[in-house]
């Protein structure tokens, strides 16, 4: 019942109820993995589906992700005890020379909502910073965002450097001018045109 209430509260963008119900579930002794996977992450999977279908709007998806994160914060001390792990580590950022971050933030929020650990480097991120952080954090995926056609070449140089580093880190790209053709051309491991698609893509790459 309570896990369902958490799920519903995320869908209803109701942060307070998510927090209250998450605490109540913990107090009642509900398994932390159940709360996380069936309540919070399950709800964000549904949010992603609703968004992809056009039934949920961007601000609502973001509010749902915020609500989910509020519940996650309550679970975190228990997760640290090893009862649950993140589904993977993703380093994300907007490439060098580009200051646009709305799309990147959407992907970041949705990845967190899906249970990934996301290290968001912000905007105007250099190849060196992407690589250094990914290496330090043992990231499996680097996600690159660009809005400008003039900054798209930065994606290519970063991907080239990642491959040369030989760490086995996968790269995915996205942004308004970016296409699957461009992704293939520069050797990216994946491309998505929207945030839920990026989450699915990372799940596939790490499966």
């Amino acid at each position, binding site marked *: 019942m309570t896990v369902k209430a958490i799920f519903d509260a995320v869908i209803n*963008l109701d942060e307070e109820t998510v927090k209250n119900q998450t605490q109540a579930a913990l107090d009642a002794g509900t398994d932390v993995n159940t709360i996380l996977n069936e309540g919070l992450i399950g709800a964000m999977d549904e949010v992603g589906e609703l968004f992809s279908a056009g039934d949920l*709007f*961007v*601000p*609502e998806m*973001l*509010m749902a992700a*915020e609500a989910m994160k509020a519940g996650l914060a309550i679970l975190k001390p228990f997760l640290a005890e090893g009862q649950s792990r993140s589904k993977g580590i993703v380093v994300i950022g907007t490439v060098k020379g580009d200051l646009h*971050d*709305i799309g990147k*933030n*959407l992907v970041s929020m949705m990845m967190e909502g899906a249970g990934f650990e996301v290290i968001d480097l912000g905007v105007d991120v250099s190849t060196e910073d992407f690589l250094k952080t990914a290496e330090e954090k043992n990231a499996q995926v680097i996600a690159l965002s660009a809005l400008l056609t003039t900054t798209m070449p930065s994606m290519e140089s970063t991907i080239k450097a990642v491959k040369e580093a030989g760490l086995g880190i996968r790269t995915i790209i996205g942004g*308004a001018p970016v*296409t*699957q053709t461009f992704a293939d051309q520069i050797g990216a491991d994946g491309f998505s*045109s929207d945030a839920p698609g990026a989450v699915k893509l990372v799940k596939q790459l790490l499966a």
Partner: protein
Amino acid sequence: MFNRALINFDKSILNQIHVRSLELLSDCGVRFFSEKAVEIFRTRGFRVSGQTVFFKEKDIVDALQTVPSQFTIKARNPEKNICIGGGDYMMAPGYGPPFMIETSGEMRNATLKDVHTFCKLVQTSKYLDFNSSIVVQPNDVAAETAHLDILLATILLTDKPIMGSTSSEIAARDSLKLAEIIWGNTSDPLMISLVDSLSPLQYSEESAESLIVYATAGQPVIVHSSCSMGSTGPITIAGSLVVSNATTLAGICLSQLINPGTPIVYGLGGSPTEMRTGGYVNASPEDVKHTAIVTALGRYYGIPCRSQGALTESFCLDYQAGMESAMMMTTAALSGADVSLHTCGTYGSMLAMSFEKFIADEDLCGALKKLMKPVEFSEEAFAMDLIKELGTTGNYLMQKHTVKRCRTEFYEPALSTRAIHTKWQQMEPREMDKRAGQILENRLLDYKEPDIDPQLERDLKTFIDQRKERMSGVS
């Protein structure tokens, strides 16, 4: 109040149109192919020669003084009553086409089933305000009783206001009788009807006598005159305006002589004659200029005005159809029209209707209704606290202010695409007419017949049956 009269004309030009119209009314007069109409003028002391009636300035000025500036028409569902002249732009679908155009481009005769389908679309429309009395002219029912079939459909399948028929004096009386069955004997506006003149400077018997019937009952009438410029009126806009205005003023004068205070919607139009063929051409820049000027004249006279709707010469859902329809309707909306017919579904010189064009035009109607809404300048809308809080780095997408308004602040079209290229490529079907067809299918599936008192429904049907029996007996 939000001022929609964005296109204005120098009052001295409007004065000139008015004065020259009076000159025509006095020197040429207007011909009424109706002895009843001529007799009304004769008994009021107007100069009459044969069927032609001559007007003095005072006759017109007196008539204009008694026309109300606004009025409300009842709907079967009172929540759907419409106020005309109150600042809103009231929209009705196509009026009069005898044909339907399929997505294949084939043209066929319209049927009563098409009328029913259009009624269902009107009922489920978020943007259309009232019914047409001839959304199409059905070919599969007897012409002399078609008005009964259409009226019954608009009354039973929708609960929005209806239009009365003006196909004959009898049809006008039948329309009033049906309204009386619903609302009882009242002089409240229960419908609106379109009285179209002939051009130049004439009224047919049916039009004049329908006008007499409706004015006697105090029921609202759109008095409309239109020239085909260069054939049934002068080739110039100035000349066309004077001829049409004089004709419309004569009709308004008749209505107010019969029943001072009869609600009127003032209307005139003008379309070019296609000089290569002699045909009639809609949705030209010249039509658009008429649309803008007629609204200015309506305000000049203090009478609600009608403009043309989403007209086009195209026969398919192409760029031309969209461009012409949008040009016509946007001008009407921004220049302050109170009423338009033909706002949804019309193709090629108003000769054909299409379900897919109806769906596409609804997107335009919705966009214009949104466009006409005043911009909100409340404290909450200015959002100063939020702007200051976020400063130069904020992301408004994540704010409650945005979430609260994200479903209502912007217009959302039903048919037009806003997808990115990848998604657009994946759309199935991608063509606009096919997507409109899908929306049409869903709308018809979702349609529910509005509630009606079973006894009232029986009474309406009994009246229709009796009238049909009697009329077939007569013929």
